[in-house]
């Protein structure tokens, strides 16, 4: 990534903006989905599992943000969030509705 002022194109700016949105919002959704899965899967009382899941979720968020800026292009950043995001969403949905009476 180049950072020199005055030498960047509009498409470069859009790509950076896209990565920022992916990191902040996409990263949050990924972390929240991960925390739901962890909270259901940890073999402990539900309050403890939820507290553990919330604490771990910030590390997921951190890794997601780093991924968004380390990947080769903005579109790859989004794909890299979407794939684990969909898997976690499916798992979270399954766990959530399976346990409902």
């Amino acid at each position, binding site marked *: *990534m180049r950072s020199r002022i005055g030498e960047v194109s509009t498409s470069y700016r859009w790509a950076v903006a896209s990565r920022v949105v992916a990191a902040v919002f996409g990263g949050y959704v990924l972390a929240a989905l991960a*925390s*739901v899965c962890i909270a259901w899967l940890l073999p402990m009382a539900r*309050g*403890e599992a939820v507290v*553990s899941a919330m*604490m771990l979720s910030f590390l997921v968020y951190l890794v997601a943000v780093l991924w968004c*800026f380390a990947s080769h292009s903005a579109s790859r950043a989004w794909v890299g969030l979407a794939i684990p995001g969909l898997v976690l969403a499916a798992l979270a949905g399954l766990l959530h509705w399976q346990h409902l009476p």
Partner: protein
Amino acid sequence: MREGFRQAMAWLHTWAGLVFGWLLFAIFLTGTLSYFKDEISHWAQPEIPVRVVDAQASLAQAQTYLEANAGNSPRWFISLPDAREPALSVMWQDPNKRGRGAFTRHTLDPQTGQRVEARDSRGGDFFYRFHYELQMGYPWGRWLSSLAALVMLVTLVTGIITHKKIFKEFFTFRPGKGSRSWLDGHNAIGVLVLPFHLMITYSSLVIFMTMLMPASINSRYDGDTQAFFSEIYPGNQRLAAAGQPAPLVNLAVLYDRALQQWPDGRIGRVSVQLPGDANAQVQFSRHNGDTVSRDPGAAITFAGTTGAVLELPRDSAAPMVVAGTFYGLHMGLFAGPVLRWLYFFCGLGSTLLIGTGLVMWLGKRQLKHARSGVRPFELRLVDVLNVAGMAGLVLAIAGFMWANRLLPATYPERAGLEVDSFFLVWLLSIVHAAVRSGSKAWVEQLSLAAIALAGLPLLSLLTTDHGLPVSIAAGDWVLAGVDFSALGCGLVLAWVVVKIRRRAALAALPAMRAARPVMPNEVH
């Protein structure tokens, strides 16, 4: 490939650090001051007498006061005095109101039980609140400061990745070498206080985790958030009133029985639900400073009319202990005087880490443009924000403390005026930085801040009956300590001013700039 990754991380470090740098600087500096929140509050209200603390006698006074003034309230909270905060504080809920505005707080003299008529001031609590609420409404300030914390975590980790030879570089410090020295200083502070940076940043997210990441609560409790809080925090359950009046037991008697749970500990807070009702409950919580981990389970609950034990302290499970430890480590309530100062200096370290980063960002780019002679607008903007965000903030803090000593002690609404002074001074510093050139603005604002802080003890002496001679004679080392610390900060700032002026004089010589060697492997 690996080099590309490191470059991407360096880019993220640079730009995330720049965009959030000023906000983070303010959060960290006011947070650092908050380690002396109680001390600054005592300084801001020198009228509150320092008493030999007897928590049990204070509790009896609090009960008398609350029964007389808040007899129909559904909830009382009593914070017992301790060595750091010698005031007895009572708070109660207005039965006809809901939400955050329903609580009234009064400070009582722990010996007489009368309301203390001290000057109206928020004291250290202002810096503490600003540190995470940023003077914004609930919950926006908390969200913004949490976002800043996440960015800080990202810049810390990317900073570690960027500096591959981080521990080797730690032992290289090249003073007097311009921007190279800034980078060495930035790296040295970064590495030296790294465990603190990481702990304080990550723990801030853990503190607000139920607000920030409620998804798992919603899923596992099926939307019933209150059930989660009742499960992990004992005594959080709302009780239904019996509707039959019944006198509350003597709290001072329960105090002895509660303290048996923690023979070497202290009671920090007493909360009473439905006082005067047959269903009343009284909960005694262990002092938060007794242990590193903040343990919500360290509480004993009694029936309010009979004094029978309803719930004994529970052992917290491992995840709660981990979360409580992060909370406790962040707040540092357990810290004695030596550790408290260490916290303070670590906090200053984090603040300086952010400050040196901001200065370097500008310095490198100014150097590039110094040759071409063009000064782009964005560099000027960063220049102004650097001065106002750092020197201006210190000046604003000094302004708050001057307002505390200059506004008449009996003036109504003076607490709000103190806060206004803080922001007014900060605003003026932006205007000043915009009209003066970079190094002149730095020197002028820091000089004024140095004079203002170093002059605080003198101002206290002139405008209050609690100047240094009086506080030292009375053995009030908290009051004297804040005066001395302000003087010390003023002297340090004066030294910084001398350094900047010397450097500015050197930079004015064209030969010096040409002689500066270009470092090929500078990162950022």
